[in-house]
């Protein structure tokens, strides 16, 4: 008798616990799931800001406007270009022309606030950035060839 009553009480406690757990956990879990399903279109353009004069590359026009006056160089050219849909929380590794690696991970995507990116240039800069479409993240400076290597990360 006592055992049966204990069993019923235990059942009620379990049911209450389950309900509370569902109420607390379902909202954030569902939001997390929908975020996980999303991906972010990320573009990586590798440029050479050369110390030598050269022909102007039309693909560099936009980057030239950003960099001109900020850093010293004679000409700008595109060395490499990558683009990929990267699922949230997945690490995308891009090999730079110098054999070093660039790692990018989209942590959170928000239409208004932009995409929170974790970025790591091997043996150089690492950091977290809130990148918005049309607001590229430019990391440069390392010597490469006759100039400096510049990595531009864009979000669609």
């Amino acid at each position, binding site marked *: 008798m006592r055992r049966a009553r204990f069993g019923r009480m235990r059942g009620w406690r379990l049911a209450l616990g389950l309900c509370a757990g569902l109420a607390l956990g379902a909202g954030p879990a569902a939001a997390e799931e929908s975020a996980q399903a999303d991906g972010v279109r990320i573009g990586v353009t590798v440029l050479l800001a050369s110390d030598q004069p050269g022909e102007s590359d039309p693909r560099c026009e936009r980057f030239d406007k950003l960099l001109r006056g900020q*850093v010293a160089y004679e000409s700008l050219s595109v060395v490499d270009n990558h683009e990929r849909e990267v699922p949230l929380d997945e690490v995308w590794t891009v090999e730079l022309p*110098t054999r*070093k690696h660039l790692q990018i991970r989209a942590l959170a995507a928000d239409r208004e606030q932009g995409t929170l990116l974790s970025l790591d240039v091997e043996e150089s800069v690492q950091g977290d950035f809130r990148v918005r479409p049309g607001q590229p993240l430019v990391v440069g400076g390392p010597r490469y060839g006759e100039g400096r290597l510049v990595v531009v990360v864009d979000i669609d």
Partner: protein
Amino acid sequence: MKREGLERERLEAYRDGELSRLARWRFERRLRRDPAARRALAELDALGAWLRESDAAGPEPDLWGSLRLRLSAADARRAEAEETRAAAPSWRRPAGYVALGAAAVGAAAVALVLSLESAPAPAGSGSGSVRWIDARGHPMMVLRDDADATIIWVPEAAEV
């Protein structure tokens, strides 16, 4: 069989320090009473020691790259949460005046720094994108961080 799997998972979680404080306390209480669980834990410890020795002998797997980003992910989310909290007008909080004073002193100190090696996001960076940044000891400059672009320059870095 399924129960064994769960037991194993719990043992590994305990060993890796992944259990919550309450779950850890309950598990340790069980360990004191259950010789079989203690034996299983000892076996797991021995296996771990053996694996560490094997790793020491051979080349290390390159797991640090993705782990590094994973670690900073936690930092980034925390920083974002703190930033959101900081967005509330600070003068409405009891510590607001202290924070304002500290911010003024901090701003003056930042103005004196010519090159950065590691820096948190500038408070109230608005349209800027930098939340956290580290140049691993290289001198670094954030040339611009506004609505048009963020440009980070590492002038003295070795050839990459």
